[in-house]
């Protein structure tokens, strides 16, 4: 995928993931959309797939690789790491409201988020 296509896909996926967030509550004080610079900074922090795979064992408890219809838990596998990092930073800032995901992100550092995102991109099946 070219860089331009990848960036476009990343933006579209972010919008899509945002819509799927259960109780998004935008624009409250102190909450914000993650900036592209911040997303890219975090994406580059780690490429430790083994660590990411371990951390992502928590993701799979809820995020099925084969989600049924009408289920509001998004598909997260095989996505560009930018999309995952963007969404997770927005849960961390409170811009996205789902309390389960906010709690997940609150306990993760930026390197953890990066490792998870890199691993999730590598999941193809």
């Amino acid at each position, binding site marked *: 995928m070219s860089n331009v296509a990848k960036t476009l896909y990343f933006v579209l996926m972010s919008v899509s993931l945002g819509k799927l967030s259960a109780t998004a509550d935008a624009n409250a004080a102190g909450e914000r959309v993650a900036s592209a610079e911040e997303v890219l900074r975090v994406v580059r922090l780690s490429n430790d797939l083994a660590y990411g795979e371990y951390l992502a064992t928590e993701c799979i408890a809820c995020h099925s690789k084969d989600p049924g219809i009408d289920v509001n838990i998004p598909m997260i596998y095989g996505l560009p790491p930018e999309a995952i990092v963007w969404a997770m930073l927005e849960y961390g800032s409170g811009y996205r409201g789902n309390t389960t995901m906010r709690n*997940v992100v609150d306990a993760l550092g930026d390197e953890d988020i990066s490792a998870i995102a890199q691993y999730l991109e590598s999941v193809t099946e």
Partner: protein
Amino acid sequence: MKPISRRKFNALAGLSTATLFAPSILLGQAKAKVVVIGGGAGGATVARYLAKDSGGQIEVTLIENSKQYTTCFFSNLYMGDVRDFKSITHSYDTLAAMDNLNVVHAMATEIDRDAMTVSTADGNTFPYDRLVVSPGIDLIWDSVPGYSEEAAQIAPHAWRGGPQTELLKSKLDALENGQNIVMVAPPNPYRCPPGPYERVSMMAHSLKSRGLKDSTITILDTKPKFSKQGLFTEGWEANYSGMIEWLPPEIHGGIIAVDAKAGTVETDLDTFEGDLLNIIPAQRAGGIAIYAGLTNESGFCPIEAASMRSSVDENVFVIGDASIAGAMPKSGFSANSQAKVAALNIRGDLTDSRVFPAKYSNTCWSLISTDNGVKVGARYEAGEEGKIVSTHKFISQPGEDADTRADTYQESIGWYDAMTTDMFG
């Protein structure tokens, strides 16, 4: 080869090198053997993760007596006619078809921790390099005076998934208008802290849906407060006003006797009559953990917070409801989370794979009424004093709007599908 910790070095120092497990494994001369006792949320998950992530270096034997597994989680939704029984019952076929995973349907009867073997009732013996004990709970029948395994055929506990679940449902469905339910709720610690109260919600939902407007549910609790109490109390008032009464020990004064045949529960306050009695007694680790000497005076198994390794035997891991997991509640989600930490550490013991700091998580969803879901959850780590401690937590709020509650319920459905796939493949 990863360095051997001081603790492990000390434990091994007295042995001759010929008896060390590691060399043959690390030289690839034999596959390491892991035996898993119990095929629930803990055992099925750890067996599956070890088989799929060990690059063929570990051979796993999963010993589970039942050929099908009915999840306790979501069994209350079956009570409420929201799910059918088939949808909460799962087979081991996919696990049994995995490479390096042998599913044995037999009753594990003995652990010989010196010989490092597990025996089954059908006379087989399985050697292990590492053992995972995930037997779930046993019920302490006489914790409720008058209650027994025999009485449970009349007054079901339904606190283990399967025939008891169906028995309770059939008795619920047989109730007529004006007939009442009495529940005895268990003392801490027990499997699924919000479970009794979600069950009451779903039984009330079933009664109300069938027009049994004069039937009531009385909860005789053995503890002064319970999980998500504010959320349940609010939901009961809004949806089942006048149907549900919760009585803590300071009101009923204590359970004196249950008579299942007569349908009565005698307390200091009064004798309560129920056309359906649901008696949930106190609990302890599954019997095999007790016989193997893995429990302490609490009836549950102490573990090392960083790994789920037994505090009394470093070749044994205990996960799920049988373990003393500090701040983590006894739940399917917790067991699944603990299984992943145990699998990581077992792979670290037996292969050269990396071991990362333990991170645990849990979320418990409960359904109060149609599309009215609530949740409580937390993340956990190994604390400084050797216990699993909560680091971040959250809970649904009273007064949430209907969309939020519907989203929470939908989230629980997605979780159930993902969780059971994570367990059974």
